[in-house]
């Protein structure tokens, strides 16, 4: 059962990673990166590493996404 859940999550994170690389819109790419880190935090939890899972969830999906969005906004502003 656990391995099914892990496989589903792994495939979902691969799909997210594909979107993060190949999507036309940068916003979608940033959101996909956040999704990938959220899924990997669940995978860390399944691997019995709650500390790493918490770090990944808060830094990977919240802080990095916010910083990416701020950077994207700044780039758009400077490029007109």
């Amino acid at each position, binding site marked *: 059962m656990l391995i099914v859940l892990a496989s589903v999550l792994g495939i979902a994170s691969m799909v997210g990673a594909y979107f993060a690389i190949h999507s036309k819109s940068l916003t979608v790419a940033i959101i996909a990166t956040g999704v990938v880190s959220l899924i990997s935090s669940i995978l860390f939890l399944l691997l019995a590493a*709650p*500390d790493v899972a*918490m*770090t990944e969830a*808060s*830094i990977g999906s*919240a*802080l990095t996404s*916010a*910083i990416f969005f*701020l*950077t994207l*906004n*700044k780039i758009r*502003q400077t490029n007109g």
Partner: protein
Amino acid sequence: MGKKTMIALITLALAFVIYPLYQSYNGSETLKDVGQYYIDNGVEETGAQNLVTSVVVTYRGLDTLGEVTILFLAASVISFFLSFSKNDRIKSRSIRSVTEILTTSTQVLVPMIFMFGVYIFVNGHLTPGGGFQGGAVIASGIILMFLSNPRFKLSHKVIQFVESTSGIVFVLIGAAGALMMDGDFLSNKIPGFGFGEVGSIISAGAIPVIYTFLGLKVGAELSNVLGVFVESQSEK
């Protein structure tokens, strides 16, 4: 020979290289020597219920100090480089009006998020989590504050004070163990910090104190990075 054929060939070659690794892999049922040592002696030597914390703060305390230093350097470099773009910025930003729902909910949620972060790092020796996680949670509360009030400014003086004080206290606690008890640097054996009962909130020697200051430091640094990024936003 197209690009896609090349990619397929490279993938195949990689699979050929990696497959023997997969074939010979069998998950280790027993722990290695170091892990076994931590499990056997960790609770007696550090008094922390959460073994990860005892490894992070006590056994590998110097590495944690290095990590905090790296984080500090990263934050400093980011603020240094983003301060260049501040000079020529026009101080008008177009801000969409924020709804009352968001401002009100921020007033309710931000204290809760801060409290959760503090809970994580104060309970670092009992439950999963610790200084880094708590600090990151506090910084995500700061994101919410920036979202609800775009003109909100972090006080750099407060951030610098919190950040430097907690860094100094962290090093001083580590040095106190080395000087006063003739132990090692960051050895968790400091007079006045008893081990207490394993599992209670006041236990594990200096670990909760170190983790509290670590959490404050990490939270201040990450919030500073966010604040610098938000401040560098401008519109011509």
